[in-house]
């Protein structure tokens, strides 16, 4: 079969390490992962797949690139893992780069294809193995490697030091008091019911999200806290890079923060992959079957607040809204109904997407793709065409996207394709519409 044509991309995180690799080193790593680390699924999947191609239409890349067969899930496995197995791991650095490009930039690990494969082959597991191999060989997008380095040094993905974090939290608390009387963001409150775990962007350039969350928690009168020390952030880009040792270290620190504060539950912000890392990948790497502390997502939390009447909606949004269902919350957690409950409670005119629930398309930013920086932005813009079409079909101009990756990429796509959409997090929905009881409103002096 002819070589697939892809536009050349220069990424120092992939080009330079690939040049320095020897065939022996590559062989050693590939064999170690395949023989020692991979489980029974690898062999069974590779032998069971009959190359029927029925997974193709599940993939948004395949659809976005006009049914180019090289983007079908089966071909991504065939030209990475199956190729390694066939060549017994003896490949050169350039080939590893090709594997890396497929596994990192042409798959979002969204698991939609598993639902379309007649055997239920977990193709994203196979591509994760490819990422693992490339990660161990240090051939990964530079920006993703940078995120991982940041995790190692600061336990956050974007180089936020503990001092900056505490300072920002206190600043947000002070600002919030302009609206809510005696508003608190309680740091290190032992025995609280919830420990709020945000994305580090919530204390850098999207501080209004942390402010929103604090506002909701204050209005609902929930007992909550945030740790003042490392482990407060719950994202985990090391999981996407294939640096599983680092992934485990991050989750351990995160859970330890919860143990130290003796909280009952961890409340995760609206970040899909962070939830996935904490509940599945990281937890399993650390040999727990389920997270050692009850882990609930913001989506479920908001649903419970509205259901129990702790948050009352004052005025619903009138314009038509639609929804981007993050894979980590819906396909991989079944929160589709709770999400719709929250939207219907706060919006008058909700237009559902098609296909929806677990069949929804990935936004094309998942699996770390959102973080690869400028060299790979085109991947999201082009691969996201299926998503754009799906959302466009609803006719709504407000898109609810309760996940940092989905939110950012849809906002960027809206800009790129000049659609003028307004993209909202679920917490923004609540803050826009909820009722703030008179008693706790700050009095302006």
């Amino acid at each position, binding site marked *: 079969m002819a070589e697939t044509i892809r536009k050349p991309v220069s990424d120092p995180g992939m080009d330079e390490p690939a040049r320095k690799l020897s065939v022996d080193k590559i062989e050693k790593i590939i064999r170690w992962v395949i023989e020692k680390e991979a489980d029974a*699924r690898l062999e*069974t999947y590779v032998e069971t797949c009959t190359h029927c*191609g029925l997974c193709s239409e599940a993939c948004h890349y395949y659809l976005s690139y006009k049914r180019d*067969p090289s983007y*079908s899930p089966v071909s991504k496995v065939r030209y990475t893992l199956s190729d390694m197995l066939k060549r017994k791991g003896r490949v050169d650095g350039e080939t590893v780069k090709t594997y890396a490009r497929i596994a990192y930039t042409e798959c979002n690990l969204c698991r939609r294809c598993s*639902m379309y494969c007649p055997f*239920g082959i977990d193709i994203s597991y196979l591509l994760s193995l490819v990422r693992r191999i490339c990660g161990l060989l240090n051939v990964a997008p530079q920006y993703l490697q940078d995120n991982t380095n940041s995790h190692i040094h600061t336990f956050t993905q974007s180089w936020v030091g503990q001092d900056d974090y505490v300072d920002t939290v206190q600043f947000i608390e002070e600002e919030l008091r302009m609206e809510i009387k005696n508003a608190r963001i309680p740091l290190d409150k032992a025995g609280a019911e919830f420990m709020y775990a945000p994305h580090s962007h919530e204390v850098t350039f999207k501080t209004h999200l942390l402010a929103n969350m604090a506002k909701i928690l204050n209005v609902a009168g929930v007992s909550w806290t945030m740790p003042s020390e490392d482990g407060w952030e719950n994202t985990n880009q090391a999981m996407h890079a294939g640096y599983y040792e680092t992934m485990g270290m991050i989750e351990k620190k995160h859970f330890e923060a919860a143990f130290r504060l003796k909280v009952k539950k961890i409340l995760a912000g609206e970040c899909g992959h962070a939830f996935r890392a904490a509940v599945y990948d990281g937890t399993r790497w650390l040999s727990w079957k389920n997270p050692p502390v009850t882990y609930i997502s913001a989506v479920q939390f908001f649903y419970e607040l509205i259901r129990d009447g702790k948050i009352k909606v004052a005025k619903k949004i009138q314009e038509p809204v639609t929804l981007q269902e993050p894979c980590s919350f819906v396909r991989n*957690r079944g929160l589709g109904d709770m999400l719709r409950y929250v939207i219907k409670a706060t919006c008058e005119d909700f237009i559902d997407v098609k296909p929806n629930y677990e069949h929804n398309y990935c936004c094309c930013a998942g699996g770390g793709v959102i973080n690869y920086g400028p060299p790979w932005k085109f991947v999201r813009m082009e691969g996201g065409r299926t998503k754009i079409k799906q959302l466009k079909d609803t006719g709504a101009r407000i898109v609810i996207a309760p996940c940092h990756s989905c939110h950012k990429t849809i906002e960027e796509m809206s800009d790129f394709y000049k659609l003028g959409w307004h993209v909202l997090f679920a917490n923004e929905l609540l803050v826009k519409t909820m009722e703030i009881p008179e008693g706790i409103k700050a009095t302006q002096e």
Partner: protein
Amino acid sequence: MYEFLTSIELYRFLKGPMVWIAFIVFIGGSIFRICSLMSRAKGSKVLYPYLSVKYSLRSIFHWVIPFASTNMRKRPWITSITFLFHSCLIFTPIFLFAHNMLVRESWNIRWWTLPERTADAMTLIVVFCIVFFLLRRFIAPEVRYVTSASDYIILGTVAAPFISGYLAFHQVFFDYRFMVNIHILSGEVMLMAIPFTRLSHMLFFWFTRAYTGSEFGAVRHSRDF
């Protein structure tokens, strides 16, 4: 060579000891493959702990009933052909009159048999379906792109006993003895190939589905169909 292939000695060998060999390899090989899969799975932290009988069955159920899953409904032609193919492939040899006669002669066990015309039609269905799969491998870009030699060999392995069986029964084109020998031989080759080639999807289907069904249903609270 032709003489050897038409010989009664070969026929006796294929009909006698070779049948035993083929079944021993098929059954023994299958047990071996399943046991080694299960023992390898023990080393993983994510397989056994999450298995759930309820969701395994739910997943299998939705993928063995025609049109019970979304992807099947999206592709009605492929679904119909695939189900027709697999049912004819499995049931024709088991309920074929001539096969049952052989079993009856050897052990005096008998079971329900298919009328000759039905069995004939079912054989043709299998052959036509294989032709369809072959054409699909050439024509559909997403399939052609990932097709390798082994995919054709497997189709050939499955087609051979049905084509030769059909020709032997109708006694056309070739000498009957020759065709029967080829038929029995290719049938035995197919049986022996099941555990060691991609045909092993017959064995592994249940396991891959059980895992994915459990992971989707019991752990991630969503559906895989």
